[in-house]
Each structure stands twice: as C-alpha cells, then as structure tokens.
C-alpha cells in the first residue's frame, strides 16, 4: 500500500500527546547509520492503533557499546522491543568495495567471525534485557566488481553476504526472543536504487532514503501489533466480486469469473493468499447478501474455487443487513469485533460497516481485482510472534466447532455435553507447552479473570520458580483435539495461602465445565500441600464480563479486594468429564 511522505509523520508526531490510548509499548531503535525519522513514523503508526509508543533511539552507530554496557541508556529505558538495523557497508567495511583484496579462505573466516560477533552481541543483549530483539539481515547488493563473472568466482561478494545471512538465520532460529527482519527482502521490494540515495548517504550517512522510512515503519508494526495482542484473527469476506468476479445470483454458476484466465485468475490468486493465511491459523468467514444455495453451489462445486466449505468457520449468507451478520459472526466464533478484517468490493457496504462497526478493520479494496492479492499480502495485521501447533490446526478446530454446533442443535445441553466425551488433561507447563501458554495469556480476553499478559520469558521464569505453579488444560472430545485451551498461574504467597494470579480459558471451550475441572484440580493440589486459603481476584475489563461471576459461583467469598476459598470441601466436577491429572 502506498505511504505518506516522511514529513507527514514528523508533523503528526507532534500532535500525538492529545490523543487517547488503549495500550503502551516501549521501543528502542539501534542502528549502524542515521535513522532519524523512524521513531516518529512508529509513534504515529502506533497512535493510529491507539497505542502509546515510547521510543528510544541510540546514538549514531553506538549499538555495540549500548548492548555491551549493562549500565547503558538502552537498558535503563527498559524496552519491550528493540530493533537493531545493520547495513552491509558498515559490516563489511572496505570488503564491500574490494572483496578480492583477500583470499577466499580469508573471506570465509571474515564471515565466520562476523557471525560470531553478532551472535555474541545478541547473547549479551538477551542476557541483559527482557526485550524482544529484531535484528536485520544484510542487503545483497546488485553490483559486484566482478560483473557477470560474479558467480564463477568462488565465494564472491554476493555469495559471502548470502552466506552471512544464512548463518545468522540458523544461529538465531532457536533464540526464543530474537527475530530476524528481512531487510534484504525490503530492499528487493522497492529496489536498491530507490532505497539507497547516494546524496542522502554522502550528506548525512542516511542509508534508507527518507521516503522509504514509512514503509520500514509499517513492516516493524508487524512485530509490535502481535506483542500487544492488537493483531487480527479473522478475515470476513464478501462473495460476489470479492472471491469471484460477477454476481452468481444474476450471472449464474457458469458465468462467474473464476479460473485460469483473466479476469478470473485474479480471484484465484486472492483466494490462494487467503488459503495460505488460513493454513497458519487465520479464521475465514463469509458475510454475503446472496441466496445460500447459489453461493454454496459455487463453494462446493465450482471447479476453480480454491476455498471450499471446510475452510470457512462460519457463513452468514442471507438477505439480512451486513452489520447484523457481522455481529453474528463475531458471536458465533466467540471473537471480538476488533479482531476482524473485512473484505468487500462494494464501497457503500464498506462505508456502512466503517460507520456502524468501526472496530472491524474494513479494507478499502480498489476497483481493480488484480490488486486484491497484493493488498492482502502487504498487511501486517495478521502477524504472530509464534506459530504454534494449535494455530496451524485452528481452521480444523473451528470446523469441528461448526459440527459441534450442528450436533448441539439436535439435543438438550446435558445430553449434548455427555455425548461430547470430553477429556481434560491437566499438566504443569513444560518447554514444549510454554509458547502456547504464553500465547494464551497474551490473547485471551473474554474468559480471563485478571488479563495479565506474560511473554514466554516470564512464563519460563515462573516455571523455574518453586513458588509459582503454571498449569494448563488440554481438552479433547469426540470431534477432535482442542489442544491447550486453559491456563492457570498460582503464586504460593505463604505456605498456607495461595493466590490465583491468572486463570483463563480459550473461548472455544467455554461452557463445558472445563473451568470447574481446572479449579477443582487447583483446590485439590492446595489441600494436598496443606494450604488453608486459596484466593483470587477478578479484574474487570471491557471484554471479560463472561467470567465476572466466576468466583462466587464456586463458593468463593469476597474479602476486600480478593475472593477467598476456605472450605475443606472438594469441588465437584461434572460427571461427563474425564480428567487426567499428573
């Protein structure tokens, strides 16, 4: 998507203080060259999402000192996210111009040592800070002094940089809090001749030309949004002229545009990009004014449909207004309206949606469907900091959920729950489950008693702390495995007194007695350890009303700010649940 000029951000940034914010984040920027302007871009882009961004920019080319000195301003700033942006000229020095001034084996040594240095730098940072770190890879320049002979020369300039990038990737792959930003990809996207402006470089050591800082900032938002749970979970699409060309109700099944030839191929491309997002955990749903039968015939039978029945978690295909349909979708999927992105080709529908439900991010699709895929691919809102097994299987789980609802329609609730054959596994967190446990604390809003957000590093600290208990519930039923869907964190404040610091349940298993099972297991364990008082608190938010009566409904008694459970009595769990606790 096209961007504003840098001066727009410089000006807007001065007006930020008057705005209202929902969230806050602290961002540090380190670089090997002049990167003035980037912090203003980030602050404005955050403010547009109601995020207050505090920024720290290290002194010019001071990144080594800042990272190695534990007393540096970088560390006292206490960033949540740190971007380390390096450029190939600073790292290679004169070798950038004269790669053949040393032998092949010396070049290999040079790369080996640079990677070692960078890895050490990253290690020092990780040891000294809880911040996540994003480090850029290096741009492979288009020019080489060897010209067309470049790849005949062993370990030439380009191969050298490529190799350095690859080594950095493999060294840092398992570093939980460190990410690599594909700066080389960024330069490819816009072109080296645009990104690198010789005049700005000679004039002020500017290595990313000013007009492109806003694009870089847009990419960096891809890291900040998921860290604040401000990313999107679900894409809702219209059908006619959005998933295919033409109107099925008027043009008919055979004459809609969808297939290998233009203009149908643009819609196939768009669908393929949607499918790719679905496969890594983005939920898809339909909101369309159409005859259900016409639409389903295309979805089920059209030879060139990419997205099929099994990919959609929810359909609202009817003649109701799209606003009510959208609310219905959010309700049925149990997600917030603010986690939905909406694609519709009709500008009037979009205007109405933006006015009625501003929380939904409505995309301004251009008239030209050949641009749909490009727009979808340029969006940073679907990023996640971790893709777990649960994410990849999420689409399947929502499908199972649809089948559960259909099953539910036929019988009464109790028989329904009995028929589900629910199995709950309660376990203490281990290295394998840790990412998912952290992820649930970061993104669960509705059934979350305290809404405390914990990054993986924090969960890891809890896990190693004898006075903290981190447990999770994994839920299975006859329709499939829901994966890890419940988390609790207990702080053993005194030998006789435990505090429920966190208790949450993923929305897709609410209402099945899972919470009873989890709470019962906490109370049982407390009793075993001779604890006489278990207390908890409910911290109300805009979204967690579904669990506001949680404590009183289980017999907890209010005592000032806390709810307390003193009873010796064990908590009953529903007889239809099979519990497996270790």
């Amino acid at each position, binding site marked *: 998507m096209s961007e504003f000029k840098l001066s727009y951000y*410089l000006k807007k940034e001065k007006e930020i203080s008057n705005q209202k914010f929902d969230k806050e984040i602290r961002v540090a920027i380190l670089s090997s060259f002049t990167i003035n302007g980037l912090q203003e871009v980030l602050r404005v882009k955050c403010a547009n999402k109601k995020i207050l961004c505090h920024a720290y920019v290290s002194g010019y080319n001071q990144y080594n000192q800042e990272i190695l000195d534990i007393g540096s301003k970088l560390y006292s700033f206490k960033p949540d996210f740190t971007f380390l942006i390096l450029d190939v000229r600073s790292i290679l020095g004169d070798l950038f111009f004269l790669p053949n001034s040393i032998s092949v084996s010396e070049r290999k040594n040079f790369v080996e040592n640079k990677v070692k240095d960078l890895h050490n730098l990253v290690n020092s940072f990780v040891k000294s800070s809880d911040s996540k770190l994003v480090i850029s890879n290096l741009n492979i320049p288009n020019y080489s002094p060897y010209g067309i002979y470049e790849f005949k020369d062993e370990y030439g300039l380009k191969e050298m940089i490529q190799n350095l990038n690859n080594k950095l990737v493999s060294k840092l792959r398992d570093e939980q809090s460190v990410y690599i930003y594909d700066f080389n990809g960024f330069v490819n996207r816009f072109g080296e001749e645009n990104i690198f402006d010789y005049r700005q470089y000679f004039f002020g050591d500017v290595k990313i030309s000013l007009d492109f800082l806003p694009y870089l900032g847009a990419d960096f938002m891809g890291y900040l949004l998921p860290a604040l749970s401000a990313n999107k979970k679900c894409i809702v699409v219209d059908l006619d002229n959005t998933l295919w060309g033409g109107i099925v109700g008027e043009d008919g099944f055979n004459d809609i545009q969808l297939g290998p030839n233009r203009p149908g191929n643009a819609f196939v491309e768009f669908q393929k990009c949607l499918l790719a997002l679905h496969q890594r955990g983005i939920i898809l749903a339909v909101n369309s004014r159409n005859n259900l039968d016409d639409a389903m015939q295309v979805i089920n039978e059209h030879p060139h449909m990419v997205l099929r029945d099994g990919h959609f978690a929810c359909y609202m295909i009817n003649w109701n207004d799209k606003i009510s349909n959208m609310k219905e979708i959010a309700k049925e999927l149990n997600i917030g309206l603010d986690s939905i992105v909406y694609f519709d080709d009709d500008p009037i529908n979009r205007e109405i949606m933006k006015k009625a439900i501003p929380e939904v991010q409505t995309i301004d699709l251009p008239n030209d469907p050949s641009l749909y895929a490009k727009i979808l691919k340029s969006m940073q809102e679907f990023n996640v900091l971790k893709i777990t097994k649960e994410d990849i299987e999420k689409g399947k789980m929502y499908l199972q959920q649809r089948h559960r609802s259909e099953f539910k329609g036929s019988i009464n609730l109790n028989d329904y729950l009995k028929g589900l054959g629910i199995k709950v596994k309660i376990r203490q967190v281990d290295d394998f489950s840790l990412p998912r446990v952290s992820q649930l604390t970061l993104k669960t809003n509705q059934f979350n008693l305290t809404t405390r957000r914990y990054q993986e590093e924090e969960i890891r600290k809890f896990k190693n702390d004898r006075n903290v208990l981190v447990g999770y519930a994994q839920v299975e039923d006859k329709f499939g495995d829901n994966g890890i869907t419940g988390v609790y964190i207990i702080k053993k404040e005194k030998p006789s007194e435990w505090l429920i610091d966190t208790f949450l349940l993923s929305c897709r298993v609410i209402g099945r007695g899972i919470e009873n099972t989890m709470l019962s297991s906490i109370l049982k364990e407390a009793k075993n350890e001779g604890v006489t008082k278990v207390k908890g608190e409910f911290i109300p938010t805009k979204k967690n009303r579904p669990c506001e009566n949680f404590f009183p409904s289980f017999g907890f008694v209010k005592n000032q700010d806390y709810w307390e459970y003193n009873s010796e009595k064990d908590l009953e769990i529903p007889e239809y649940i099979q519990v497996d606790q270790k």
Partner: protein
Amino acid sequence: MTNSERIYKVIARVMDVPISRINDESSPQNIESWDSFNGLVLADELESEFNLKFTMKEIEEVVSVADIKKCLKNHGEKFDD
C-alpha cells in the same frame, strides 16, 4: 498557485511553522526547526513537488528560500519576481 507559494507550502509543512512566517529571507537562522536533518527532508520534498533531482552540492548550498529559488531557476522553473 505560484512557484513561490509552492515553496512556502513545502517549507511550512516540513519545518512545521505557519505559512505566514515564511518569506524569501527564511533560513535556518530564523526558523528554529530548520536543522540539517530537516534540510535533507526539505530537499527531498522539494524534489517531489517540482519533480526534479538536486545534486549533492545543491542540497548543501540550499539553506534559504532565496537559495532555493535560485536553484530551482537553474532547473528551469520560472519565478515572477
């Protein structure tokens, strides 16, 4: 809009000052926000506005509205005054 007005508008936007404060004598001496970085931003925005490219020497020398006009004249832009 005259070419002078186009220049004033760009300067006002980049330096974040009211357009009424800009005249031919405006320079880093009398506009506080006109530092070397904003000077670079200004050159960049003037290039987009007038669809031309300055040389490095021009970027360096252009430090007042009068300089900008002289420079733009060399690039073939016309001014009434």
